[in-house]
């Protein structure tokens, strides 16, 4: 059989997903099912005077109404899963339904459970909640002002964490002070709404006889949900089953453990009937976590001839009204440590204040911290290049960590595993014939065209991660993975994994790995994930860890199975295992062509166990736990050419080139799909997307009518290339690719737009670079006429 590793095998999950045969949480139908709906606060900040649920309870079809008072003492507060060390991190309580105070528009106030969803929604309108509005804080900068109202009374100045990192302070300060050039900027990395295609949903079923509870839920990490749910509702873990069935995207917004997961579980236990809650898109905008939202005061220090000496970043990270499960790690560990990017920067200082505001809680969002960091360094490099009158590409080249320097220890304490950064840059430049492109740009500029070229060379930290490091940085769990490869008597294979793919295609790539290793056709391999009753423990899918960590666990388990199968085959064929080879699905004895056994024969022999080698156990399965020794560090260079319409301010993307290196590639088609999706999402931030609150904390961009997610028609064809530098620290040699696109494309496009506008004297613009924003800048700089 030809090797599948490296080939564009079509996605095994697609036939069911694209023909409507997927099984999402909302598709779960159970006998006697009840439907829940949540009353949400219309105020960003208010004291609850009273809630009268009498009329709602009286509505025919309503089974129960719960308020914060009803669950107090029965449903524990929603915990935070990341406690950043040495950051004075506070842990403000997050009740599943508001107690006394509401803290953002969308904060849950009451839950109705009814015989139908329609009745549940009708009942919401019958609840009389009386609020005493309080002054809200929306903006992180205003929130830390001495006179600002407090989101949580026990978090002074609304500063929920304060984290500092980098190289030695005194040495760094000295280096900064003596630098020839200092480029100061203030960036706003705006708040985004993840908008997974499938909104959230949860269904809980409780068996009062056995005390067992099953929760189907839209999660990226069902085992984390089980662990936290157990603590919150007091059902012991062995009686809890959490299932993430088909999940329609998450992008980080389905990492957290959410109040609704606890509430439907509680209601199912109270009522003895299964309860379902499905989010509407409007609720998704308000009550599912948002991403990004940082105010970044940053400085790049360098020499006049293009050598970067240091970077300094003072960050205000808006955390929203409560600390979501993984949120504290995002603007700290996942952000700060990667700030030097692809460059050998001796001095880096990072100061991050996590700030509470009366807004929807922030969480990881595709890239989680790394896009925010990469934006800083890649925008600063461009500004620095301009300042010293050097081509930005030249500055990048001059400062890259050289290919022979790996493994490389950064000034922030990371060890980059492998890389050849310059090669990706060269490849991107060659793809567009950079020198000629710059000449053409000059010519077109003279004709009045606003043409811009932007590049970004990035490094990503992913494949989270060694558990030892997880512990050291305060992640309240491990970051290893496990897998079971189980061959059935007929020779067919099920693989049980702890990671939880929800769109990334691992049902295919994992099957490729197993088929290759065990020697069976890919059709004979099915991947099982998401059901804690079936799969081994795992920490889930995020941080581009599924393949580097979960795939490695799987590869090791598959190898154990392959080894055992070979021993069994040798026994059947009365040969030494050393003389047995596996070829085209057949075990053969070297030099004895007639001595053959099929994989199926071997599998059956393993289970009948009539004649096993001495000391061999029956069955054919293996499990493996894999804890990676390091993170993985994919990298690459993106390049983009834009033209700006002077009349409208519209940005037209003329070309987009991506050169990414994610180590060895299992399935190039799936990798390209991830790259495409990532680019689109990242450009969404650059040009269109942005969550906008008014000063009362009302989300103005609260629907698909206002919040502009990019559409396919907004883009040209992407020119996607790869280099391949294997990851040295995992058995597959793979790195992550799920987030690189969002990390690289945002600064690439912003750099390109500003390159187009620079001749007019425009030096910076806040994202999103909407037509209006660009048009206004053009007007102010006389650029609206050619």
């Amino acid at each position: 059989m030809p090797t599948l590793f490296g080939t564009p095998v079509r996605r095994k999950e697609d036939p069911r997903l694209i023909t409507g045969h997927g099984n999402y949480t909302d598709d779960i139908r159970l006998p006697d099912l009840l439907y829940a709906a949540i009353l949400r606060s219309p105020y960003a900040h208010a004291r609850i005077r009273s809630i009268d649920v009498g009329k709602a309870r009286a509505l025919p079809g309503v089974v129960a109404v719960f308020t914060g008072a009803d669950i107090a003492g029965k449903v524990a507060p929603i915990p935070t899963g990341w406690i950043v060390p040495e950051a004075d991190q506070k842990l403000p309580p997050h009740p599943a339904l508001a107690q006394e105070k509401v803290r953002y528009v969308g904060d849950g106030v009451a839950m109705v459970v009814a015989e139908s969803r329609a009745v549940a929604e009708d009942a919401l309108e019958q609840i009389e909640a009386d609020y005493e509005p309080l002054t809200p804080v929306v903006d992180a900068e205003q929130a830390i002002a001495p006179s600002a109202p407090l989101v949580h009374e026990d978090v002074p100045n609304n500063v929920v964490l304060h984290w500092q990192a980098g190289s030695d302070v005194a040495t760094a300060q000295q280096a900064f002070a003596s630098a020839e050039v200092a480029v100061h900027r203030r960036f706003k990395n705006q708040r985004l709404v993840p908008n997974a295609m499938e909104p959230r949903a949860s269904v809980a079923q409780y068996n009062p006889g056995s005390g067992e509870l099953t929760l189907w839920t839209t999660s990226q990490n069902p085992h984390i949900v089980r662990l936290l749910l157990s603590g919150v509702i007091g059902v012991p873990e062995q009686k809890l089953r959490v299932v993430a069935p088909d999940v329609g995207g998450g992008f980080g917004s389905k990492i957290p453990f959410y109040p609704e997961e606890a509430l439907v579980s509680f209601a199912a236990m109270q009522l003895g009937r299964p309860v379902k809650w499905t989010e509407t898109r409007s609720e998704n905008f308000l009550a599912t976590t948002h991403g990004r939202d940082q105010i970044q005061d940053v400085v790049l220090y360098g020499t006049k001839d293009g050598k970067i000496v240091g970077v300094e970043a003072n960050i205000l990270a808006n955390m929203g009204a409560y600390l979501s499960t993984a949120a504290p790690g995002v603007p700290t560990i996942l952000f700060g440590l990667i700030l030097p990017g692809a460059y050998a920067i001796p001095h880096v200082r990072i100061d991050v204040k996590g700030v509470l505001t009366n807004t929807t809680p922030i969480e990881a969002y595709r890239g989680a911290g790394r896009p925010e960091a990469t934006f800083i360094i890649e925008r600063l490099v461009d500004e620095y290049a301009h300042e010293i009158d050097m081509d930005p590409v030249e500055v990048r080249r001059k400062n890259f960590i050289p290919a022979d320097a790996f493994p490389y220890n950064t000034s922030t304490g990371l060890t980059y595993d492998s890389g050849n950064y310059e090669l990706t840059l060269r490849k991107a430049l060659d793809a567009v014939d950079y020198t000629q492109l710059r000449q053409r740009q000059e010519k077109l500029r003279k004709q009045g065209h606003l043409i811009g070229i932007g590049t970004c060379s990035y490094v990503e930290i992913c494949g989270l991660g060694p558990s030892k490091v997880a512990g050291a940085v305060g992640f309240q769990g491990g970051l290893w993975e496990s897998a079971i490869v189980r061959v059935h008597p007929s020779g067919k294979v099920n693989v049980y994994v702890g990671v939880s793919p929800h769109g990334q295609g691992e049902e295919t790539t994992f099957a490729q790995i197993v088929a290759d290793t065990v020697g069976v056709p890919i059709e004979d391999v099915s991947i099982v994930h998401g059901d804690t009753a079936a799969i081994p423990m795992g920490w889930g899918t995020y941080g581009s860890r599924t393949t580097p960590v979960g795939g490695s666990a799987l590869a090791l388990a598959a190898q154990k199975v392959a080894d055992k199968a070979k021993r069994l085959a040798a026994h059947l064929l009365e040969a030494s295992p050393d003389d047995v080879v596996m070829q085209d699905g057949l075990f053969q004895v070297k030099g004895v062509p007639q001595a053959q056994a099929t994989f199926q024969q071997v599998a059956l022999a393993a289970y009948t166990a009539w004649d096993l080698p001495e000391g061999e156990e029956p069955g054919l399965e293996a499990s493996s736990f894999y804890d990676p020794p390091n993170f993985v560090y994919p990298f690459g260079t993106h390049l983009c050419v834009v033209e700006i319409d002077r009349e409208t301010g519209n940005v037209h993307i003329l070309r987009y080139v991506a050169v990414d290196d994610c180590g060895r590639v299992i399935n190039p088609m799936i990798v390209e799909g991830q790259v495409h999706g990532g680019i689109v999402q990242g450009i969404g931030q650059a040009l269109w997307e942005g969550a906008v609150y008014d000063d009362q904390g009302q989300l103005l961009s609260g629907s698909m009518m206002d919040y502009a997610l990019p559409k396919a028609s907004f883009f040209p064809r992407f020119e996607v290339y790869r280099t391949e530098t294997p990851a040295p620290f995992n058995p597959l040699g793979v790195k992550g690719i799920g987030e690189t696109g969002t990390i690289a494309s945002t600064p690439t496009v912003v750099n390109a737009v500003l390159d187009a506008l620079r001749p007019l004297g425009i030096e910076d613009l806040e994202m999103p670079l909407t037509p209006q924003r660009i048009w206004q800048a053009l007007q102010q700089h006389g650029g609206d006429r050619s």
Partner: protein
Amino acid sequence: MIPAAFDYYRAKSIQEAFFAKQQAGADAKWIAGGHSLLPMMKLRLATPPALIDINEIDGLSGIRLQADGLVIGALTHHAEIAHSEEVVRTWPLLAQAAGLIGDRQVRNRGTIGGNLAHADPASDLPAVALALEATLVAEGPSGRREIPASEFFVGPMTTALSDDELLTQVRFPVPSGKVGSFYCKYPHPASGYAVVGVAAVAQLGPDGKFQAVRVGVTGVGMWAYRAETTEKELVGKLPTQENIASAAQHAVDETDVSQDLFASEQYRTHLAALYTVKALQAAVQAIQ
């Protein structure tokens, strides 16, 4: 996501529709494609006590080119208008505008009558109906009347139709002489609705000067309107870039310019003038 409870009637004839409406009361709503009404109901922004489904009434759908005009039944879907040879031949801008509404699904379900009667401030077809001086035919229990487009759009999401009237037909006069037309739209990147939509019709006389100019504008104010100052400014003038640009400066004279997250009053005003120029230039160019 679930509308408040409502009654539902399916009418097989206009008489049945009127009867149902009489029974259901003034707040009941006609429903055709439902692509504007249903989302509002699901968000509970609209809570009509009853819907009267008119989709199965015979004779309300279809496109006919007659000597006196292009007649389009109120239930005709946008997709059919966009692809109709008669429409493309007679008023290409109408086919063009219909093809720019929403997405494929919306165009396959949404109807011209529903679109015009809903009178969304950023909807495409009202601008076209105004520029083409369409006649909207309404039928009610007390008979049938014809309403000129210029008198049809009277306020935000408000038309000249009375509660018990049903829009049954839209008539577009057939062009005569040297006439060209064009619809220029700046779609909102999120909603696809017109941030600015300009429908322009230009007629040149034997002297090469504008004999008639009609400009319908949508998306700019709270309801669609004719940019009459711009039109008047141009009649009798040569279709030069300068003349057009100067007249287009008056594109918002007849409205209060709206603003939202995407476009401020200033930016929208700028776009309105810009798209008026684009639409007029293209209309002149389209003259055979």
